[in-house]
């Protein structure tokens, strides 16, 4: 699939036709929820590094389509933890706090906690994860053991069932662990994009002035423009 994505236009139509046939043959399979062409176009507008990032991400997402949820979590978590370096927003963006979209993070190759969480969140949604199972969580983290420093941090939590104990996708501890095995984290508040787009058409995000009003909405709008969701 990796190699096939690079083929030129006429062949690409065959690719889509092939995918459609596979979709028909395997009805239980989760469907693709991202627009790869749009993603590539958005990446081209940003920089060649963003294009390289997107080209690296797309095969991972395509492969993850066929996986179960646990494997999807593993794949996405590992991809971003490996590819993105942890850097402060002041270093990367010159701002105290900046919420970057997945492609922006891939372009810089660096980001802080929420950039990891956001990139993982949208990637998982892209491979068909239901939005109700994912939450971005503000946590208080204690770094470096029981006497370590306390910092504000953000992680992505996965709820296999409503009310169940979540799995935590984090960049401090790259391994996937259930919440009970993360005593260093104290959750404060959680959110996701559920209900946020109610009453708004799928294309409206880019032109909606209110989308720019909060960081979260701004990121949602940017991610949409980049072909996620």
């Amino acid at each position, binding site marked *: 699939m990796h190699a096939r994505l690079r083929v030129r236009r006429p062949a690409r139509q065959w690719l889509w036709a092939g995918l459609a046939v596979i979709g028909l043959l395997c009805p239980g399979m989760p469907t693709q929820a991202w627009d790869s062409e749009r993603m590539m176009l958005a990446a081209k507008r940003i920089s060649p590094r963003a294009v390289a990032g997107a080209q690296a991400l797309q095969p991972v997402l395509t492969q993850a389509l066929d996986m179960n949820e646990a494997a999807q979590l593993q794949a996405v978590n590992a991809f971003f933890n490996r590819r993105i370096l942890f850097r402060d927003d002041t270093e990367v963006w010159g701002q105290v706090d900046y919420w970057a979209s997945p492609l922006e993070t891939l372009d810089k190759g660096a980001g802080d906690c929420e950039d990891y969480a956001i990139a993982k969140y949208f990637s998982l949604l892209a491979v068909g994860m239901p939005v109700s199972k994912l*939450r971005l*969580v503000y946590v208080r983290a204690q770094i470096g053991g029981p006497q370590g420093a306390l910092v504000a941090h953000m992680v992505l*939590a996965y*709820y296999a069932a*409503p*009310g169940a*104990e*979540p799995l935590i996708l984090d960049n401090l501890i790259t391994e996937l662990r259930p*919440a*009970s095995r993360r005593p260093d984290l*104290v*959750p*404060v*508040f*959680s*959110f*996701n994009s*559920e*209900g*946020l787009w*109610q*009453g*708004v058409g799928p294309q409206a995000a880019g032109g909606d*002035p*209110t989308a720019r*009003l*909060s960081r979260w909405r701004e990121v949602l709008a940017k991610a949409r423009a980049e072909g996620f969701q």
Partner: protein
Amino acid sequence: MSLIRQIWLLMLGTVLLAFAGSVTVAVESARGYLQTQLRLKNADNATSLALALSQQKGDKELMALLMSAQFDTGFYRRIRFTGADGSVGFVRETQATPTSAPTWFISLAPIESEPGVAQVSDGWRALGKVEVVSHTYFAYDELWAGSLRSAFALAVVGLIAGGVGTLVVRRIRKPLDSTVEQAHALVAGEFRTVPEPRVPELQRLTRAMNTMVSRLRVTFQAQAEQLDTLHKQASCDRLTGLSNRAHFLGQLTASLQREDGTAEGGLVLLRVLDLAGVNRNLGHAAADRVIVTIAQALRPYSERAKGCFLGRLNGSDFALCLPVPNVARETAQALSDALSVLLPSLGSGVAVGLGAVELRRDMTPGQVMSAADAALARAESRGPFAVELGSEPANSVAMLGEGAWRQRIREALVQGRVHLVNFPVVNARRELIHLECPLRLQLEEQGAFEPAARWLPLAVRSRLTVDVDERALALALAEAGSDGQARCVNLSPASLTDSGFAARLRALLWDSPRIARLIWLEVAEIAAVEHFDLLQELSRQLRPTGVHLGIEHAGERLGLIPRLFEAGLDYVKLDAAVIDGVGSDEHRLTFVHGTVTLLHGLSLQVYAEGVSNEIDAKALWDCGIDGATGPWISAQQGAQPAP
């Protein structure tokens, strides 16, 4: 659709469209803004509430209390908490609160209150989500009040724009109207100039039209002058400039035949005694001087007294026709006295003889001339500067005093002792154009109906012409109404000077607007020359009623009224004196032909009066004349006896 109406509609449409468009845009943008504000408020409140709920460690009672407290502020339509398993844990909802905005407005511009949603958790445990929906009634109130305000403001702006537009349209309309009116007038044969407007396009148009009109004027003026020359050649004696024999006799005939001609008057014949001898003894030049001196002595009479005319009948004979009875003898005597002083100084033996006669309407020109000749013969036999009077005419009604005349005319009018006589005016195919209808009054009970010649001068003096003319028009209207025949009424020149005249005629004509189109009104040429402005005013007032307006007894002074084409007339009737003998006189024919051509060029119809024989009639038809009347025509038509 007229241009002005189109501009009006365009302006109205633009203002209305601008109004509707701006109100819609204003309402729509206010609605969008309010909707956005509501959504943000919902989202913010949901997040705050979720934050607070997440701190309650999953205590359902505390959470319910918090949500109730939030809901009871009254700004919310609904607050709902949904558990992680999808069950509704808490819900508070109110029905819509009435607003000041009307329901049609709400359904036309609905405001959506999008729910704000936020996640609630207890530590790592996801509890569910909270949904907050604010009320929209205050937004509707705000939107309604704002819409009313902006509609009012835009309506004011629209009205101002409309007002300014109206002024501009008026400014355009005035010159446009005057140009259009000028064009209409041109079509009607009325060549007038109008002031140039300031609007450049119209200014150019008006300038072009004005230039054309003035060029036409020059052309017509030139033609009129040529005609004048022709007329002089045709009717004047070359040496003295007085009328020649034919023309004088034509004038005499016309004045005796016309309904409003001379009823009674006098004629003086003057002869240079032995002109051949004078020629022989004193030379040709001296004889000419004698002739010119006599002409100069005679001319003041015709210049000063209206209706007085004179002519040089042949080498030695002069004739002077006086419009007033019982002055012929005194006039002849005065002339004799004056000439007896002047002539001897030119040479010895130069003398004149004078014969005078009183003339009456029932005499023929032949009778008048032979009576005058007889008197002159008697005077000649008595020697130089003798004056002889012809036989005394019978006593006339004119002997009555002015008061008595006034009384009689008024009584005849009041008692209805009036009637119209009809003389046909026909075209070349012998089709009736209209009936010329002079008014006749029965001055004495049981007496004869008298023509205007008998009573008009006295009516003028008694200032009764307006009543007479009004009565004539009323009669003509009644008769035309009953038989559908076009009728022509002549108006007295004296009536024109009465300020209420036009209005009275107008009122009469408006009373029967359909019959008014059958009515032809005419005034004598002399009135057109002397009261041109009054005639023009009369034309302006009466023409809208549909009447035809024209000039009668025309010919002598046509060259003097170059503005004839500005008067807005329909036709001209050429005087009998001008057309008499046209069939046998080359000069007259040329003059009449030129006149007809000129008047046709001015879009005027031309008719001939007093046609008395077939030769003249044929010549006139050949000239292209539009119609003719006169004794011969009447006889041909087998209608009324000749006037």
